């Protein structure tokens, strides 16, 4: 019969419409600002810098690996220098990430040998300033290890275990932090 397929389709929509009032499986949306979906632990948004204890004690040693590996080149790092000797200290003086350029790919967190940069889960970052507003400096990027534990418990536990192990290897004087020297990034080869 002509129109049979059409009616069959309408039966499907009617069934869905009625079931949406009774069947919790059919309620597929949430009322966003009031209700929120819990994010899975792996969910990622933007990178942040982890510190242990106080904000001075950040894990980043300004090795610039993330700056070099970042695909959209949104990280900018300057090494802090000792005011007296002028020698570089293993700490960033400037650490900027431009969130408007960042594409949340997680490569910085992956390549970091010191577990210093990790991915955050915040997503409500809308701002009114297009140019400077999304440029996050070191102060804005610093977040505690406790916060990291809060958003990603399993991964943070693994990281802590790994870090305490590597600290044991390095032996008492903490002045010599990591066994691996933060090698200067290999200068990128220029194509002809």
């Amino acid at each position, binding site marked *: 019969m*002509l*129109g*049979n*397929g*059409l009616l*069959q*389709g309408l*039966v*499907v*929509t009617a069934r*869905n419409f009625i079931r949406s009032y009774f069947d919790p499986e059919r309620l*597929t949306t949430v009322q966003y600002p009031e209700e929120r979906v819990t*994010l*899975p*632990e*792996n*969910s*990622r948004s933007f990178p942040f810098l982890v510190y242990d204890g106080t904000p001075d004690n950040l894990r980043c040693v300004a090795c610039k*690996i993330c700056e070099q*590996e*970042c*695909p959209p080149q949104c990280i900018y790092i300057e090494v802090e220098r000792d005011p007296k000797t002028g020698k570089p200290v293993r700490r960033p003086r400037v650490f900027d990430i431009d969130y408007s350029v960042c*594409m*949340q*790919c*997680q*490569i910085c967190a*992956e*390549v970091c040998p010191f577990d210093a940069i990790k*991915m955050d889960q915040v997503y409500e970052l809308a701002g009114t300033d297009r140019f400077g507003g999304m440029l996050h400096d070191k102060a804005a990027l610093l977040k505690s290890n406790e916060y990291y534990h809060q958003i990603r418990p399993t991964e943070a536990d693994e990281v802590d275990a790994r870090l305490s192990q590597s600290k044991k290897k390095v032996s008492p004087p903490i002045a010599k932090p990591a066994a691996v020297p933060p090698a200067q990034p*290999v200068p*990128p*080869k220029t*194509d002809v």
Partner: protein
Amino acid sequence: MIQPFTTPESGYTLIPKEGAIETQTIEVSMGPHHPSTHGVFRMDVVLDGEEVKRLKPVFGYLHRNHEQLAEKMNWLGSIPFTDRLDYFCSMSNNWAYCHAVEQLAGIKVPERAEYIRVIMAELTRLINHSCLAGFLLSDAGAWGTPLLYAFREREKILDLFESVSGARMMCNYMRFGGVRADVSDDWLACARKVVENYPRFLDELEALITGNEILLARTQQVGILPRELAINASVTGPMLRASGVDYDIRKVDRYGIYDRFDFRVPLGEVGDVYDRYYVRILEMRESVKILQQALRDIPEGPFDAGVKMRNFKVPAGDGYGRIEAPKGELGFYLVSDGGTRPYRYHVRAPSFINLTILEDMCLGHKVADVIVILGSVDIVRGEVDR
């Protein structure tokens, strides 16, 4: 007798038929925003009344310099950019690129990683084809309903992607020699549940639209792509199979571990829009079969080959790696000079090449059919313009 004349802008010369009523052709620029369900795309259409006389697709509105960017970036850095090629199927794009690099560098992928890749790629195929059915019907006038039904199911798969890779669409999940993170047993259980319920959704979708008389009238015998033309134009994917050519790279190349799965390749007979739609529905059913087998057989073991991603170098040489992406043959041609970045990086994007045949399918049809035919090609602008 009407004299042959040239349209001013495009320079096409139109020769009217003998004894035709004198009508005027007009050149219409459809787009760049009109076919917006498929992105920013423009067609220069020469119309006689409502009939299409000439059609010229205009590309490039979404050009992002993908290939050149990749040549200035190390091998790892291109993976997140491949997500942005065909943003519906980021997992397949990741796999195609990693597959090409692995071939070039001679990396052996562990078994578990291969299984995970197959699972991800087939889930991506489910997403792509069910959404395509929705978009195609939106183009045909069934505005919203089928698309949202498809999006409801897509959401479940995107949740799976998010819980394992961290992002819903831009997964950035595959790595050279494996995947970035292992899947847990809980995840596999969730995936099994989604896959188990998927045929139910497909039945619902088919009950909703496949037998619909309006859809049949709009799609059957519209935009026929003959077998020979499809082969000559190097069309690939479901479009080629809808024209009756048995060519599926999963069967031809048997890349990865596709030789272990039992599945069939659905073929069309006529090659019209309806066949292209229905081949995709059948492909989803086959994908469900592959997924069931993969989720049953997935072994324990390492999920990557332990390749160091930093300062990753590929031996000098060139290679082409291709996979059967949901839209067709997605290939990466890479040339390496032994350094940390590709010397040449080329993407063979399926929707770009499938789109080149658009004019031949549209000639003689009405304007409204053009939109449906464009919908059945299944394009994503991110991939076409790169």
